């Protein structure tokens, strides 16, 4: 946490100047009813804070949970991740993400994590990543080579995928994102995927497998034309009395999850259902 000058020190120095400026500004104005003084931001309600779900981490040790540590070692080596001088294990009940998992981290001499693997209740690998950064390298692999590297890593880690991978160059980091979108009954599941991030030197930085539970397929599926009619009728209702127009840019069938928190809470474990998705232009 090295820092040359603390933010507090600079703010403390400048604050009196600003207070003077604000006083001068207020002196020239009539009193604004209901306005808050500068710097007196309204506080967030306690209810909002108490709504925060908790993240609880329980220590796992290698003696009590040897199978978790064995899986972690296998995945680490399969993906070419660094081994640290020590490992730490946690069972995480993640109220923010709504998931439980076992997590093993490789840590360095200072106790900082250098790599991590996560497993679901069935012992399946759901995420793995390394925290270090790639050393400067002149080697820059192609999208095809990145896809091959991702395939090799998945095979070694015992993760199966099917279908054609999509490869995106990262505009903000280094390397390639290789994705396999999850399909069920030939319909994509929104957000579900197996994803591998490959550095430009060909090493794997992360692997993730995301699968939400799905509801049973509907007995009857709305056709595309019928779905468009439903949308047009609804949009016409919304547009009454407004100077607005709407055109459909695309329509796709997807499995999607409920978006409202109240619905998610009522369902307990939310199930994704098939839905037509229209893209406005």
């Amino acid at each position, binding site marked *: 946490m090295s820092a040359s000058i603390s933010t*507090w020190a600079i703010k403390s120095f400048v604050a009196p100047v600003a207070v003077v400026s604000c006083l001068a500004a207020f002196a020239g104005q009539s009193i604004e009813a209901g306005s808050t003084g500068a710097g007196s931001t309204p506080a967030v309600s306690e209810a909002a804070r108490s709504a925060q779900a908790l993240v609880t981490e329980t220590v796992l040790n290698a003696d009590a949970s040897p199978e978790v540590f064995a899986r972690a070692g296998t995945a680490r080596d399969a993906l070419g991740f660094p081994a640290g001088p020590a490992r730490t294990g946690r069972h995480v009940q993640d109220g923010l993400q709504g998931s439980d998992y076992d997590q093993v981290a490789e840590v360095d001499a200072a106790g900082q994590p250098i790599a991590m693997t996560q497993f679901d209740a069935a012992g399946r690998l759901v995420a793995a990543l390394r925290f270090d950064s790639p050393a400067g390298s002149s080697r820059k692999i192609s999208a095809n080579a990145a896809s091959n590297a991702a395939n090799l890593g998945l095979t070694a880690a015992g993760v199966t995928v099917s279908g054609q991978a999509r490869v995106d160059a990262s*505009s*903000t980091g280094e390397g390639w994102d290789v994705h396999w979108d999850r399909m069920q009954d030939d319909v994509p599941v929104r957000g579900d995927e197996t994803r591998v991030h490959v550095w430009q030197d060909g090493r794997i930085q992360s692997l993730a497998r995301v699968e939400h539970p799905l509801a049973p397929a509907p007995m009857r599926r709305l056709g595309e034309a019928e779905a468009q009619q439903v949308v047009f009728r609804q949009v016409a209702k919304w547009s009454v009395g407004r100077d607005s127009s709407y055109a459909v840019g695309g329509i796709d069938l997807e499995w999607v999850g409920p*978006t409202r928190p109240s619905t998610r809470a009522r369902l307990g474990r939310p199930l994704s259902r098939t839905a037509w998705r229209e893209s406005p232009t």
Partner: protein
Amino acid sequence: MKRAERLLVSVLLAVSALGATAGGSLALTGDVWSNSDSFSSRCLGFTDTYPQQLYTLAAGQMASLGYKPVGGALGPSFTRSAFLKNVFYDYAVYAHTHGDNYWAASGWPNVDSAILQDPGPTRCSSFPLDAIRSSAIKSATLGTPYNLVIMSTCSLGSSSSTMPDAFQIQKTKASTQRKFYLGYATATYDSSALRFEQAFWSYLNGAPNHARTLLQAFTYAVGLGGYAAPDSANPFQPNWWGNPNYNGTPG
């Protein structure tokens, strides 16, 4: 001469007293702003509840990091004037709203990024009416530093964004100062922003004593995957600048 000296001493005493008061009561404020009206059924055709969820999440987690008080607003109180009036006092700023890299008043090729205030209960977002320009924010900050800035919007994490500079955060990934900026580089679904930010905060605040860094949390959240994106031209790409070793606590 004597009169002048007395006046000078009086002024110095007044300034030092003011400084002591301001310094002594200086809070480690974090502001969380979320535009909900332009995500209402009136503007979208359906009610998008992500602005509420993102607001609640950020407010609680910022408090867990040690920012106090946590202010800001959800909905119509998120105005340009409220944002600019309060930003100087902030150590951390979070905004979930529409954002983009607009041409500056001087025109192409100069960029002046902006976020949009909440439009209120009677209309939807409009750039001419609602923009809070990065240049206006920079003026309001008076050049003071910020610890943590999160722009939960489209595009303000892209290389052309001028928003980091509004908070005196340089677009480097090797800063040694206590500052960190997080944004999304492309058009971004707010459902993906929520998933990412849940993962980010859960890792950051999941260990005691603020032992984890913001970059570790960022790396963790990116690595989890599962982020739906509008199209292939807009893959989900969060980005950061600042200090890779900073844990995000205020001060």
